[in-house]
């Protein structure tokens, strides 16, 4: 066992390196109307998008910061909007094949293991380096099927009608302060369209990275799953370690039409100095199914509540998430399910672990509107607190405006039992290993939903985090 654990030891340095900066364009620090105009001009965007960005910027200035640091709520006071780069572009235009990707960027991906994924999957890989997607490959048969998988900037140019039809309709600029900020300065992200009845078997993958110090990353993702279609999208995040706070604020909008099926998997592992303030929302129509599989391991503070609006009869939503908060980290994550139609179903399963002074918060909403008869809702939140410095909050909001509903919510908070540890240690397992086995077991309902290589990576990360936890 011991030998295996050592072999699996994770090379954490690969998450902590930095590349020389060599950018084509980098906006100055800080946010202003001029920055937004310049950004839009550099991208050669249509007038409507510039207008939309400027409107959103005005909303961003007006909106108050959510929550207030009181009662253990996230504290966003350390976030200095004037100390962030709002737009950086590496490479002039998105590369279409691997050979065209700059050597320096390839080195970065090499160390992140992207060629690995490329070889393994021969799948569509949208890899975001800095603020724009620089590499895309899409399996040929998908193109034949009419699947569109582009970086969002290119999609605005190549799919202007579909883009304009859906952009900002699921998450309007005024939804919250960070959705407004993203709309004002968004750059990069993925655009996916899966046509009627098309099933995409191999996951669509995108890698997102932050490199430049103090650089904000504001990717914008828009995914449309047409009637009866199905797909799985995976994003994984890593970032180098820096000394000052950086901001990542994404917006992800998803439409799953009648009978469609979609799963969105995220492993978030930003460096521990990054504010990760993300708005993710999907609408699911009649008999559609939307699943968020969401792992939050990194960042200084994450605020993320993936949501599903169940708009048609028989629609189904699921959020399966884990959060891990170590020293100096606060994972404020959860889920929202809004039942707007009869016979809709939602399931929320949340597992969180806090350790070394870290804090996890489950914050969630289940809303059943009048007329959503026969809705079924099941919410389960389990928190594990590993030491006496760490904390965990559970704040579920449940609003029911319909009688014919079955809703159950269950939460537990606990520590690792001495008996469990004793049992494992009496079988010759070291305490550190025993702890990591128990934590991995606790997270297993999440990990088993991940593609194999992600599950392996997550398990390694957790094992690494568990090292030095004894003593």
């Amino acid at each position, binding site marked *: 066992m011991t030998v295996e654990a050592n072999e699996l030891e994770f090379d954490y340095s690969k998450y902590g390196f930095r590349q020389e900066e060599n950018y084509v364009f980098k906006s100055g620090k800080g946010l202003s109307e001029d920055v937004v105009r310049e950004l839009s001009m550099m991208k050669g965007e249509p007038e409507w998008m510039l207008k939309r960005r400027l409107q959103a910027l005005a909303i961003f200035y007006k909106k108050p910061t959510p929550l207030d640091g009181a009662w253990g709520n996230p504290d966003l006071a350390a976030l200095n909007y004037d100390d962030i780069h709002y737009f950086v572009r590496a490479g002039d235009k998105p590369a279409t094949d691997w050979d065209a990707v700059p050597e320096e960027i390839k080195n970065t991906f090499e160390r992140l293991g992207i060629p690995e994924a490329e070889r393994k999957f021969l799948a569509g890989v949208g890899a975001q380096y800095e603020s724009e997607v620089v590499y895309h490959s899409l399996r040929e048969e998908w193109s034949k099927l009419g699947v569109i998988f582009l970086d969002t900037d290119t999609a605005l140019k190549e799919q202007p009608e579909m883009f304009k039809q859906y952009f900002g309709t699921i998450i309007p600029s005024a939804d919250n302060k960070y959705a407004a900020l993203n709309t004002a300065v968004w750059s990069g992200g993925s655009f996916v369209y899966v046509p009627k009845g098309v099933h995409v078997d191999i996951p669509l993958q995108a890698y997102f990275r932050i490199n430049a110090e103090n650089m904000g990353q504001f990717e914008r993702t828009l995914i449309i799953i047409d009637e009866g279609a199905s797909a799985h999208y995976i994003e994984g995040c890593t970032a180098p370690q820096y000394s000052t706070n950086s901001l990542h604020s994404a917006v992800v909008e998803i439409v799953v039409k009648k009978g469609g099926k979609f799963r969105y998997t995220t492993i978030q592992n930003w460096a521990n100095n990054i504010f990760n303030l993300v708005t993710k929302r999907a609408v699911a129509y009649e008999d559609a199914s939307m699943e968020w599989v969401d792992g939050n391991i990194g960042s200084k503070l994450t605020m993320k509540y993936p949501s599903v609006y169940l708009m048609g009869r028989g629609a189904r939503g699921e959020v399966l998430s884990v959060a891990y908060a170590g020293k100096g980290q606060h994972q404020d994550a959860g889920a929202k399910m809004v039942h707007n139609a009869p016979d809709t179903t939602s399931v929320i399963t949340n597992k969180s672990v806090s350790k070394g002074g870290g804090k996890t918060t489950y914050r969630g909403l289940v809303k059943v509107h009048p007329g959503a008869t026969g809705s079924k809702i099941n919410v389960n939140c389990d928190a594990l607190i590993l030491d006496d410095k760490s*904390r965990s*909050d559970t*704040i579920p909001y449940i609003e*029911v405006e*319909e*009688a014919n*509903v079955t809703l*159950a*919510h269950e939460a537990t*908070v606990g520590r690792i039992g001495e008996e469990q540890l004793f049992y494992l240690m009496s079988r010759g397992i070291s305490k550190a290993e025993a702890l990591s086995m128990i934590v991995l077991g606790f997270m297993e309902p999440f990990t088993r939903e991940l593609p194999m290589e992600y599950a392996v990576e997550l398990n390694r990360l957790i094992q690494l985090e568990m090292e030095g936890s004894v003593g």
Partner: protein
Amino acid sequence: MATKLPAIASLSAADVLVANEPAWLQTWRQAGLAAFNTLEMPYWRRTDLTAFGFADMQLSADSGTFRIGADAPPGVVVMPMHLAVHEHVTLMQANLGAAVAVNVSKYAALNAATWRDGWFVYVPKNLETTLPLHLIQGFGAGNTLMSRNLVVLERGARLTLVEQLMGNGGPYSNVVTELILGDGATLKYTGMQTWGSAVHHVGHVVAKVGNDATIEWSAINTGALHAHIEAETNLIGNGSRVDWMAATVASDGQRLLTAPWLRHVGRSTEAHMDFKTVVKGSGYATFDGMIKIEGGSTDTITRLEEHALHLSPQARSDSIPGLKIDTNNVQKAGHASTSGEVDDEQLFYMQARGISKSEAVHMIVMGFFEPVLDRIPLESLREQVTAAIAARI
């Protein structure tokens, strides 16, 4: 028409003085007024009191009516607050505001500045009584009730107390009740909000529980048009316990909110909460609860059950069963919450036995409330409340 104080928004220092009150209390009221003028009006998403023009409202100079429903148990001091502030100065100064500070909220501050009367109950050291004490307060139509109640149990004391708000007053009542339990004390407390349908009620009920002390708290919340009750149990002493049950019925037009806070402070504290809600017609009930386990509170056991039954499609229930846990040394912590209508299978089972549907619903709902109603210590009162709830379903 009873005399009134000036509008709430323009109360002066002189307005809150009550004739012949001791100097220490006058100072205390001024602190309340200062806090009232400084504090912001709380933003309540789920209780809306703007409808009846709070700032322009004039409080009654009249104190309301206070009576004892059953004989006071021997040895227990029971007297109106306006007398107790003269006769029990040391106890008053030590305990008034100890559980609900003058500046804890805008409404608590208003209460501190302008309370007229209330009940003072004192159980001396090691005095154990089983005879229930039933205290009732009310007020007339067109009036307000500003009431302040203080219950102090010394070390090892034991008391069974029912505090009932009853009658067709209105428009506004603001009631603060402080429950102070010394080491090893036991209080069986039933708090009943059974106001008539014209009342807008804001309540603070806060218990401070000493070492190895136990409070068995049953809350009945069926009256008023709008009610916003902030209830709090502070398990401060080591080995302190609360067994907390509640029954809420909100029917047509009613908006009833209960915000129970449970704070685990001492070591080896234990709490069981079982809150039940029935909403009917256009009734709207909210459970906005929080269990907080402080960092130093080790070996805690805490469990919350919270269930809402919907009897009509228009009714609404909100549940926010929060947990804030600042220690890992927890024995057990968790909550469960459900919402929905009466179980079809249960209904079918009973209908198959010849019971009509409405009767079956009735029986299921009464069974749902039975554990909390069973704890009302006075049989006649229990029957009265049971009948009143039954009549509304």
